[in-house]
């Protein structure tokens, strides 16, 4: 066995290393392209972006804007989960309710909500309330739809069995519906989180006189790509972290069903 062959076999069994190499190669390409080919007015090499992170956080208002955005995400997510859970259960637990209101909910879900973003600014102003409200409109529908569908997917035989063994409504909810709902609940939370992220970030970028939108526009107009890329990277990291938390929770709490 020659040496290169062994390395090849090792890599074939560990694709994570190759994945890492691909990411590093892309970063390198970006670094070289930004240093030697592309106008520095438009793009900064990753090394300079990282170096300017300190300066970015030193810019007056940026840490505050990031903190406010995080707060908006948290509040919008909490409201979406609370209302989404209540509506999803109310609609999903009764056949009549789901038949009557599900079409309306799906119709509203299908509307491109971005078209009504100016209305939210008109009603709630340019501060956090409008961004929270817009985040909630994006987060609530996937949660309602997932929970309503999950509640309805419970096998009728389990309900019949519980009934015939004399369970009352509360007992059925506690011992049949509730355990079945947990995986659905976390699946809905994951979809709701990506909705909330989209809604809040859209509204933040739309309002250019305050918050994140103000700074992205300022850095764009000042042709300061290092800070712009830094701000975007910080927000992307925030989004990835939040998505990852709910995804881990979904895997963790959804496990019992697969076993």
């Amino acid at each position, binding site marked *: 066995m020659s040496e290169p062959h062994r390395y090849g076999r090792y890599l074939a069994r560990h694709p994570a290393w190759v994945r890492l190499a691909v990411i590093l190669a892309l970063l390198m390409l970006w670094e070289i392209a930004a240093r030697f080919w592309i106008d520095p007015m438009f793009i900064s090499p990753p090394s300079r972006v990282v170096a300017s992170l300190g300066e970015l956080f030193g810019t007056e208002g940026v840490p505050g804007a990031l903190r406010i955005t995080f707060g908006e995400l948290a509040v919008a997510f909490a409201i979406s989960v609370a209302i989404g859970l209540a509506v999803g259960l109310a609609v999903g637990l009764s056949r009549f309710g789901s038949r009557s209101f599900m079409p309306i909910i799906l119709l509203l879900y299908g509307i*491109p909500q971005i*078209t009504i973003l100016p209305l939210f600014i008109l009603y709630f102003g340019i501060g956090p309330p409008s961004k929270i409200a817009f985040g909630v409109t994006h987060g609530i529908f996937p949660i309602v739809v997932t929970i309503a569908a999950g509640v309805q997917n419970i096998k009728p035989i389990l309900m019949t069995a519980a009934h015939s063994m004399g369970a009352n409504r509360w007992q059925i909810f506690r011992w049949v519906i509730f355990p079945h709902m947990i995986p659905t609940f976390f699946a809905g939370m994951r979809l709701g989180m990506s909705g909330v992220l*989209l809604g809040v970030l*859209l509204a933040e970028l739309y309002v250019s006189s305050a918050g994140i939108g103000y700074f992205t526009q300022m850095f764009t107009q000042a042709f300061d790509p290092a800070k712009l890329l830094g701000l975007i990277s910080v927000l992307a990291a925030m989004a990835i972290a939040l998505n990852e938390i709910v995804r881990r929770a979904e895997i963790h709490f959804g496990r019992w069903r697969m076993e």
Partner: protein
Amino acid sequence: MSGRRDRRSRLASRAVQLGFVASVVLAWYLATAYGHINRILLPNPVNVWHELKDVLASGEYLPDLRVTLTELAVAFAISCISGVTIGYIISRSAFLIRVFEPLLAGFYSVPVILFLPLYVLFFGLGPESKIALGTTISFFPIVLNTIAGFGYVDKIFITAARSMGASDIQMFRHVLLPAAFPVILTGLRIGFTVALLSILGSETIASLAGLGHHIVSLAEAMEPARMFAYIAFAVAIAVLLNTVVSGLERRARRT
């Protein structure tokens, strides 16, 4: 017996739906006609209806609609071609799938709308930045579904076709493509929907023309009735396009 009861309950559901919609419109009308609600915040539905008729009759929406649809068509074409091609190449090797699929899925979980300021910096406020954003967003579902479609064809079909002496072209035409096609179609439909949404969104946030831009300019001009009319128009266009694409998907799936 149960059939009749079922029908009656279905009728009751329809009645509840109609009643809900009617009461919303009625409440809207009464609040704006008799309540003390600021006209700028909520225009009267009758006014909105007149404005909508005026917009449709005058045809003034045509230039904006053309901009939006052109951006959508270009973005979707680019992401279709690149997504399906790259997805097919990756799907040809189990190793490439294991390297690239988690990578692409990871990128997909970043809200792509964050790239908009960057694209505006690169490409300006015109249609190019919208096309770039629409392409970026729709590329991921298309490439991921293409990988899933071509990459996870049941091995037994491939072995059977090989042992019966299928050539590469025959293998592609009669085994791989029919197996992958429905999955790819789903990716294309999702890609279309998110491209449309992101293009409307980026027009709303920063642009010079397009339906989203027009809605914002009416909001800034404090013409709420006309803005509501345009919102209704944009929503109708989006729902129509999505319905057409879903219909095409269902049709292609059947044949």
